[in-house]
């Protein structure tokens, strides 16, 4: 190890080894995590007022799971996220391939329009969707599940698929066209090249894009708030109605479940796509 010399005197650019930066970084991490961690810890606290620790309990989790409204909302959220992810992934992949492969008139315009869902303030998109689904395409109420969630799903796809397209397009940029030519030389048709050469290369982008779409959908409050009805609440909309006026252990418990779910999903996706990226890069290195 060469670390002995470095341990005493940090190199000129080793800013992370300087104490003011370390203190600053620690402060920021505390700032970002302390509220979330206290929220999670105090969901196990056996005290309604929720400030002083009075012992471990799971009763608020039991309450949360028995809260039918909340569980229905949770199921709605997962359903919306799942459907929105699949559709966004297809649309996003098509968009990425379209922009990567073809030159066409109005391409710049299309790219600009595609960036809009990313930059438009959420509130504007929310009210636009509200007006759209009341004036132009009134979504019939009383449809069977999951069709009753249609308005929310459509809105979620609209803001998700641009993000997915960007992620996949970034991945496509690193595609080596010679692979395609090699496949063609070896007699593969367009379709075969697409599935056996292009799609495997896109895979990490597809996974990252899918994860992004799923969390964007699960996370969204504002746009859902404007497109949900009394019978079609999602988890964030339901929690919103619970937290407006009070801080309660039940909400802490419900929030903790959602936090853990997102963290687990993110970790899983990072592991899958990270492994893939590593493998692809190792393959390219050979």
């Amino acid at each position, binding site marked *: 190890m060469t670390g002995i010399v470095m341990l005493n005197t940090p190199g*000129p*650019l*080793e*800013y*992370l080894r300087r104490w*003011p*930066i370390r203190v*600053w*970084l620690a402060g*920021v991490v505390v*700032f*970002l*995590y*302390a*509220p*979330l961690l*206290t929220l999670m810890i105090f969901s196990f606290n056996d005290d309604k*007022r*929720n*400030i002083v620790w009075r012992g471990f309990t799971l009763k608020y989790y039991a309450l949360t799971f028995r809260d039918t409204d909340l569980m229905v909302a949770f199921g709605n959220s997962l359903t919306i996220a799942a459907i929105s992810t699949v559709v966004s992934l*297809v*649309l996003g992949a098509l*968009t990425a391939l*379209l922009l990567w492969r073809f030159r*066409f008139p109005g391409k710049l315009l*299309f790219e600009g*329009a595609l960036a*809009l869902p990313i*930059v*438009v*303030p*959420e*509130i*504007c*998109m929310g*009210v*636009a*969707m509200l*007006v*759209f689904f009341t004036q*132009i395409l009134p979504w019939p109420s009383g449809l069977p599940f999951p069709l009753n969630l249609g308005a929310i799903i*459509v*809105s979620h*796809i*609209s803001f998700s*698929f641009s993000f997915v397209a960007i992620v996949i397009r970034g991945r496509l940029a690193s595609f080596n066209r010679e692979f395609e030519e090699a496949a063609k030389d070896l007699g593969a048709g367009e379709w075969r090249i697409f599935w056996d050469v292009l799609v495997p290369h896109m895979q990490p982008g597809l996974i990252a894009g899918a994860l992004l779409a799923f969390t964007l959908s699960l*996370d969204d*409050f*504002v746009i859902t708030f*404007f497109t949900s009805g009394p019978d079609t609440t999602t988890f*964030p909309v339901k*929690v919103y109605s619970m*937290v407006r006026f009070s*801080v309660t252990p039940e909400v802490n418990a419900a*929030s903790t479940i*959602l*936090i853990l779910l*997102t*963290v687990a999903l*993110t970790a899983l996706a990072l592991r899958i796509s990270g492994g893939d990226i590593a493998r692809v890069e190792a393959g390219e290195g050979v």
Partner: protein
Amino acid sequence: MFAAFAVAPVAWLFAFFLLPLAIIWAYSFGENKSLTEIVVTGSLADYAHAMKPLYFGIIFKSFWFAALTTILCLVVGFPVAIAITFASEKTKAWLLLLIMLPFWTNLLIRTYALMAVLRTEGYVNFALSLVWNGLSGLGGFMGYRLGAFQPLPLLHNDFAVVFGLVYVQLPFMVLPLYAALDRLDRSLLEASLDLGAGHLATFVNVVVPLAMPGIVSGVLVTLIPSVGAYLTPDLLGGPNSMMIANVIERQFKSADDWPFGSALSFLLMYMTFLAIAVQGLVARNRRRREARA
């Protein structure tokens, strides 16, 4: 072949995104004829309405909050971005994850977590009261009296809104800063340090100019969502900390003045476009200057 790729995304974008926005845009030049009927008359009355002192004040306040948030995020985030950039590969990945993780957590939950921290009977005030009572007891020995602890009003005011916005937006600032710093040619920094410039001088004269594109995009991705923030002022703010988004929501959900709400929405949109145009211009000037150099 081309059509197979193009039809679905283009159709979706038009039908379910551009069309709804176009309707709102048309409404912003319209007026309420009856409770349910809106006539697009082409009048600018709704925009004029937004310029009345009450609403102009709220628009101004939204910008002030957003600007303050952006500056705070820049100041807090820059050292973090520097720390990540110059960390070893492994530490870098962990630090990035550490900054990103709260960003993956639901916005509503993050805001709610802040409510629990900041409220009168929240953790900050609870900790302060412990300290206060400790000092009070100590003072009692020495003959001083501090009086009963008055909890600080941390929630439901302007402070809470800006605090919440910084909390929510910080990762958005750190990531573009990091991306710009990571691309930076390190030998330039080393040269500056070797030639006798201090770390601060190097930062001001070398790092900041080179990282300018990252700073500009960091500022934009923090500023734009902050101006249009709905949840943060709604949950953390007091009766006087309304921002544009809260007024818009009110027009659509309770006041039923859709044309006015549409005009406010599009004011927000115009400002967004302006900000993006400015960024484009900055980037172009920069490229031109670099091409000349």
